């Protein structure tokens, strides 16, 4: 508020009014929104919230807002929205009900507002009770020297039948092994993959990752792995189509697993 305004105000208003105005400024800052203000105002009625007069409360609120306007206090939009709504509620409560109107009655709206106020008050109460409870690290304490739990690792090893057979094949062919030589050595065709898979399928009794069906050694070179993966995948789709294998995948980008189809 500019100094000028202050000066004007002091001219117009009595000392009492000015004090009230100052209190108002402070208070509006202290309120957490219109509902909070309403709750505060309702306390001046000095009755149980269950018996509060909503009409009277609406009146109080409207006077408050009016006063704030007179004092050129900028009220946040939600205070004004509430004022408009309360003005509407007040008229509903005062006028006889219009039978053609389908909306909720003034009494219903008033009851809801009373409920909201009771609920807010109840939650404030509950919050205070919660914070008044004994708290950990303030009123009660945990063990000061916790003893670490030692973790013993128990390792179990696992291998699949395919691992076993591939290992044996690897060993038996080591002497005679020479790298696959092709015109394009990093390319595995789908036909090659299909032929290879056909031979393997009879032994694929358990679910196994498609990646374990790549030709020996191909998984080491990124280029070869890419080609072999694509070809093996295409071949597995073909085999699935022919009803020779089943395919499954746990989720997007999860490993694809295959096994022979039981007949």
């Amino acid at each position, binding site marked *: 508020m500019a100094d000028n305004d202050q000066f004007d105000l002091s001219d117009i208003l009595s000392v009492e009014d000015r004090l009230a105005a100052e209190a108002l400024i402070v208070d509006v800052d202290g309120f957490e929104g219109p509902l909070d203000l309403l709750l505060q105002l309702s306390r001046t009625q000095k009755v149980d919230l269950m018996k509060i007069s909503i009409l009277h409360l609406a009146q109080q609120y409207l006077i408050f807002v009016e006063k704030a306007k007179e004092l050129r206090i900028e009220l946040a939009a939600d205070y004004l929205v509430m004022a408009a709504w309360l003005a509407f509620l007040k008229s509903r409560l005062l006028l006889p009900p219009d039978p053609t109107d389908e909306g909720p009655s003034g009494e219903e709206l008033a009851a809801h507002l009373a409920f909201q106020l009771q609920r807010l008050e109840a939650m404030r109460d509950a919050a205070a009770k919660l914070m008044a409870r004994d708290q*950990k690290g303030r009123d009660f304490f945990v063990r000061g020297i916790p003893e670490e739990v030692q973790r013993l690792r128990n390792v179990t090893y696992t291998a699949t039948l395919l691992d076993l057979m591939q290992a044996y094949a690897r060993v038996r062919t080591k002497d005679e092994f020479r790298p696959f030589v092709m015109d394009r050595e990093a390319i595995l065709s789908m036909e090659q993959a299909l032929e290879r898979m056909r031979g393997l399928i009879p032994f694929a009794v358990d679910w196994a990752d498609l990646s374990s069906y790549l030709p020996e050694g191909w998984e080491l070179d990124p280029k070869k792995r890419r080609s072999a993966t694509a070809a093996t995948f295409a071949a597995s789709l073909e085999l699935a189509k022919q009803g020779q294998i089943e395919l499954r995948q746990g989720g997007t980008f999860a490993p694809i697993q295959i096994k022979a189809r039981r007949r």
Partner: protein
Amino acid sequence: MSDDQAEVAQEESLFEAPPLAEQERMVEAVLFASADPVSLTDLAARMPHGCEPKAALEQLQKRYEGRGVRVVRVGDNWALRTAPDLGFLMQKETVETRKLSRAAIETLAIISYHQPCTRAEIEEIRGVSVSRGTLDQLMELEWIRFGRRRMSPGRPVTYVVTAQFLDHFGLESARDLPGVKELRAAGLLESRPMPGLDERDEEDDQDDLFEDES
């Protein structure tokens, strides 16, 4: 233990479980060693086969009645905590916590009494918007966490209180919150839509209440 029960126990285990008094010692040792609450499952997993941690725990709890340390229940877990009336001896151990704002305290209370609770519901009760920082602060304290998304339009996230919240405030479960029965009886924990506003999505809120605690 009746004869029948004894027989069942015998069948269940080839080895005889240690006597209850011994099991009580074990539960005592495990609870002493841990600063965090321990579950019955965890106890059973650590104790020899055939042990019944629940019976041992109940016996232990009785033994510590009126002592400087107590056996307390936190959700489905169990812990040892000093008796609250002796807190004055522990200035050295007292943890200085950041003072929570009024908004944070009220938000925490609303979540704990209304959980699972959406942000819109918190705002509806407080009558003002909830700042992101308030929820973040409560999350950082690990007093609230995300619950299941609400099955209403927009599938809003919900908030629920955590086991750490229960532990911090010495609560066995959210059912033990101060005055929760009275508030429910008074209908103040219901989500009541504004008359005239058709809020179908609010209808099944009550069923959700405390789903996580059971």
